[in-house]
């Protein structure tokens, strides 16, 4: 194992001090002199034709600015995967809360009063909210048939596999809406500058996405669009797409009023109008041998995309590429659809399609075990993917640790003994159960995304080092981890490298803060920038010493020639003293990116996968149908733990979100097309008392792409908690849940259908 100075240590996070002191500036905290307040006229119906937007003359409209689609001073779309999402609805609305018009005024009260004096006259149209209804085609929400995207993978001879199977096991699985519930609501401000440029500040994951959306719609050059994330209070994907919408709204209002305009969402507004995780349904058929070997697999995976594309296509691709599970199956047919409905558009949420598909396949493994009277662990081990196996997309795998994490999680949790013991049942209302799952996550953008991204990182030196990236620290610790990587590469202490919050006027585009790519890919590019820095210093020192650059070596954190040596700090200081401040850039080498054919859905889907297994122990109260998670044993193989404390935080935090989704985070669409929760007493996330004891074990098997071998981590812990929890409930009660959230009421129905829990 290589010796590191910085990697693998856990220094206090750089923004920790200002956060514990209450001094960290979130968008609601930033003073913006003369700032107006923005508000949204939202559609009250899920589907309808706009007849008129009526402004009551009783209100003095000169007190505010008002913008509707007709008076929009720019092109009417928010640039995302497709440019189908309008800034403001034109003729039709296709979801409740869709923005029809915008208002800005000097204060909240004035804006609220103005909003009360606007009526949107809408001729309601029939609306559809489920994929099944939408596929009937009677109501067209999007395109000609509501199908936003469709993909297939066919590999091997599925027909033959089913014809020769000992057993065909079939199952239907469903996952519900899932709200990111970042603690800080969405918020954005646009500030017009005297030179005609615009500054955008706010809560966001992806400053260059915001800049791109503004550039495309407003037609302004990027230099005139300066985007600066504030301290961002959680994102989890929820601040990937939607900030572009808010930025355009505030920008339009700022341009119209000539004043800064800020929109701060209230919790109710945030719950009701921002994208959630795609609800999904999955049908799985497997051809199985009596010993549990799966010879054939058919999957039909369907996502409810809501009214517009947003990021659905990419969510669906990732779902497709994970839904076969961590298994070696020769004959596979996967078909996936994203279907438009009159629901608020679904969007990015940690895991990005993978948790839905993995929930289904992991529950299906449990079903196979049940039908064959085998232990679910044995069925998994029978089929688990190993080094050199091939995934359905045709990718031959290397760096596979599925078996290792699974066996280790089983061992650390005492799975086998407990599973057998708990299956015997017990007296009293509390029944214990343990369940287990295995999952994985591809790091970085899907397919060739990293190859085309053009990730750039810059290091400046002007007497001190600063590292410039466009990655946002929304809590995951990016701006602590990336300087650690640079410090390791340069032989410096982490505190010798500043990592300011991104500012598109200053930082290069190192891509969005998404897809578990920051430590792995941006971190890698940081090391490339460090190499460039060393080269730069080597050239300078060689010139100064009158020797060949090749005569200067960089080892053990210092530059050496035969007669003397310099630390990087000394060399940079000398270079700066002689020739002034300087900068270097790093870029991603092409060989570090995957190569994938999206048309044929074939090739290297991700350069590396991280692996995770989880054993969850629960107590089910069979009087009240409550599920209480007790213990979570999580084994994750993540290549390299740059900052072990943050790694554990990511794992526990992500896992808990998934655990919440599995049984208490219950969100549905009402018959009127609204989300069922408009306050936090109706959308419940786990509290301290709903949280299990953590046993987290991290394995490090460096990959050849990420910084110091790091793989993507952020989304990994979201991928397997839910099926493990339902397997634990099965162990405790005997009932087989196929749908999450498995609320108390659903559990009650399953237990009733089974005829109780006495065994």
């Amino acid at each position, binding site marked *: 194992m290589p010796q590191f100075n910085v990697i693998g240590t856990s220094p206090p*996070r750089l923004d920790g001090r200002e956060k514990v002191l209450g001094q960290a500036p979130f968008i609601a905290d930033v003073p913006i002199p003369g700032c107006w307040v923005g508000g949204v006229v939202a559609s009250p119906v899920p589907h309808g034709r706009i007849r008129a937007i009526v402004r009551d003359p009783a209100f003095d409209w000169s007190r505010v600015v008002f913008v509707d689609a007709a008076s929009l001073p720019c092109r009417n779309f928010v640039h995302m995967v497709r440019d189908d999402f309008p800034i403001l609805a034109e003729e039709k609305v296709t979801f409740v809360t869709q923005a029809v018009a915008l208002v800005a005024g000097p204060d909240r009260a004035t804006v609220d009063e103005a909003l009360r004096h606007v009526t949107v006259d809408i001729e309601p149209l029939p609306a559809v909210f489920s994929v099944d209804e939408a596929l009937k085609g009677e109501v067209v929400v999007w395109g000609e048939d509501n199908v936003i995207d469709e993909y297939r993978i066919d590999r091997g001879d599925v027909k033959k596999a089913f014809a020769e199977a000992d057993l065909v096991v079939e199952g239907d699985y469903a996952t519900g809406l899932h709200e990111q519930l970042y603690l800080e609501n969405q918020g954005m401000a646009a500030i017009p500058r005297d030179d005609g440029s615009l500054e955008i500040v706010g809560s966001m994951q992806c400053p260059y996405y915001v800049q791109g959306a503004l550039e495309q719609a407003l037609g302004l050059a990027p230099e005139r669009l300066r985007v600066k994330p504030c301290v961002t209070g959680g994102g989890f994907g929820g601040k990937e797409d939607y900030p572009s919408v808010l930025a355009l709204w505030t920008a339009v209002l700022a341009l119209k009023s000539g004043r800064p305009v800020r929109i701060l969402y209230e919790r109710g507004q945030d719950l009701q109008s921002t994208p959630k995780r795609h609800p999904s349904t999955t049908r799985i058929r497997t051809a199985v041998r009596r010993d549990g070997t799966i010879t054939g697999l058919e999957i039909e995976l369907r996502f409810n995309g809501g009214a517009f594309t947003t990021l659905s296509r990419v969510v669906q691709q990732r779902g497709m590429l994970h839904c076969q599970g961590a298994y070696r199956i020769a004959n596979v047919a996967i078909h996936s659809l994203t279907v438009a409905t009159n629901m608020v558009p679904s969007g990015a949420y940690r895991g990005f399609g993978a948790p839905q598909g993995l929930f289904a396949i992991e529950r299906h493994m449990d079903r196979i075990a049940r039908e064959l009277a085998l232990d679910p662990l044995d069925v998994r081990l029978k089929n688990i993917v190993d080094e050199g196996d091939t995934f359905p997309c045709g990718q031959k795998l290397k760096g596979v640790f599925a078996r290792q994490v699974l066996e280790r999680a089983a061992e650390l949790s005492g799975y086998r003994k407990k599973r057998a013991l708990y299956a015997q049942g017990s007296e009293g209302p509390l029944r214990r159960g343990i369940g287990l799952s295995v999952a994985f996550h591809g790091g970085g953008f899907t397919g060739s995304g990293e190859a085309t991204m053009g990730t750039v990182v810059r290091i400046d030196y002007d007497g001190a080092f600063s590292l410039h990236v466009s990655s946002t620290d929304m809590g995951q610790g990016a701006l602590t981890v990336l300087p650690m990587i640079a410090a390791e590469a340069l032989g410096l202490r982490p505190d010798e490298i500043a990592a300011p919050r991104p500012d598109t006027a200053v930082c290069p585009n190192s891509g969005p803060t998404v897809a578990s790519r920051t430590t792995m890919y941006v971190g890698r590019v940081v090391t490339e920038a460090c190499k460039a820095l060393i080269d730069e210093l080597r050239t300078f020192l060689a010139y100064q010493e009158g020797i060949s650059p090749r005569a200067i070596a960089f080892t053990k954190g210092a530059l050496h020639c035969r007669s003397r040596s310099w630390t990087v700090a000394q060399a940079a200081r000398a270079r700066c003293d002689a020739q002034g401040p300087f900068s270097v850039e790093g870029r991603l080498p092409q060989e570090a990116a995957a190569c994938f054919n999206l048309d044929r859905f074939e090739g290297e889907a991700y350069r590396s996968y991280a692996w995770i297994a989880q054993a969850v122990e629960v107590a089910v109260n069979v009087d009240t149908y409550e599920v209480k998670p007790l213990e979570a044993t999580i084994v994750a193989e993540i290549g390299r733990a740059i900052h072990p404390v943050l790694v554990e935080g990511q794992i526990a935090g992500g896992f808990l*979100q998934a655990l919440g989704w599995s049984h208490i985070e219950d969100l549905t669409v009402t018959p009127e097309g609204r989300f069922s929760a408009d306050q936090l007493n109706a959308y419940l996330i786990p509290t*301290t008392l709903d949280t299990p004891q*953590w046993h987290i074990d991290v394995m490090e098997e460096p990959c050849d792409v990420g910084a110091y071998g790091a793989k993507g981590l952020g989304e990994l812990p979201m991928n397997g908690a839910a099926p493990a929890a339902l397997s634990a409930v099965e162990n405790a009660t005997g009932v087989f849940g196929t749908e999450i959230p498995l609320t108390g009421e659903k559990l009650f129905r399953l237990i009733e259908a089974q005829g109780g829990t006495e065994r």
Partner: protein
Amino acid sequence: MKMTVTVNGRKRTVDVAPLARLLDVLRDGLALKGTKEGCGDGECGACAILLDGLLVNACCVPAIQATGRAVVTIEGLAEAGEGRPEPDRLQQAFVDEGAVHCGFCTPGMIMASRALLEERPHPSESEIRVGLSGSLCRCTGYGTIVAAVAKAAGEGYPERPLPWKSGGGERPLFSPDEAERFFVPESLDEALAILHRHPDATVLAGTTDLLPDMKKGRAAPERAIDLLRVPELKGIACDGSVIRIGACTTNGEIIRSPLLRERLPVLVDAASHSGAPAIQNRATLGGNVANASGAADHLVLLLALGASVTVASVRGERTLPLEDFVVAYRKTACEPGELIREIVIPLPPEGSLQKWIKRGSRQALTLSRVSLAFHLEREGERIKVFRLAAGSMSPVPLRLTETERAVTGRTITVETARLAAETARSEIHPRKSPDYRRAITANLVRRFFEELI
């Protein structure tokens, strides 16, 4: 109005509306931006602060009630170093243990931790979890947060008790218009006289519902009377064979009451499972009763305990059994000009048994889906008195009198348990999810008796 309040040890005076949220007073009026708004409903804890030393959500405290009191915010914890504040031991422990991620919940989480450590300098892990159960974090999975609190406690934090546990006692200074509409009586007679003149005025106690409703535009009181300065409405006392609890007594006071812990622990249990600490320190017993909601946590228990309600007006006082007081959903027998003075609970006889059970949708800070309260007195083998009340099944909580009658006089056997469960199952008629709620009720009733066999 002019509001004087002691914030982090400094007296501050600001001009605010009487029902302005303390959260806005701090953030906008005093530019203390460390206190965050995550929901405005008392449901997330991001705005938690200390008010007279107790944890509260600043989004649920109106300025009129904070006036004259002592507020401590996250900014007040930092030790003033050389020119710039330095994290105290607790704040530093959060940084060191990796308990800080996005940082948005952090100030409220730290204030909740401080409040806990003020009260319990050496908390167990489960006490830490309970103390922080009203503070939501979406990033960390809580493990590092619990570790940070344990670390600070282990280092002897807090070194000194909080110096700011009471304010200057100033009263709000109303403008002439406000003086006609907002009132801060300091005795019951004064309060009743005002209420007599303004029977339409909103009375303010814990305001855990009112302020969120105002924010959403569902309430806009024209007139309001603050009851928190009326000493007669506070306090817990044993009076012969009854316990009297003033209407403005908070759940926090119930939880901390040595008298109740000894004589009526079931009420302490119910108070501990209603909301979370920051809500418990505000929500009052009288408020819970006055709400007359089917899901009210205390009503169910008070019904089973055979409690009554004393209301007062300038005309005098009257005492009604709770059943008669709660007339319908959100409707009580309070006449105009009357307010709840106290709740009177008969002391359960020696050897009797009380139990309260709530099934919410998660383990803390949750509305009940089903709640049940039991009171049982035995004579030898036989059931002498049995009272059973159920909540969240009907517009207001109900006594299950058929079930009570069915088992009274019987000995406690498996058969009795089954009979009670089945009678209860058929006696309730929940509107939403009826079979689910019936099943839980029947299970819990059966279990109550089975555990006594």
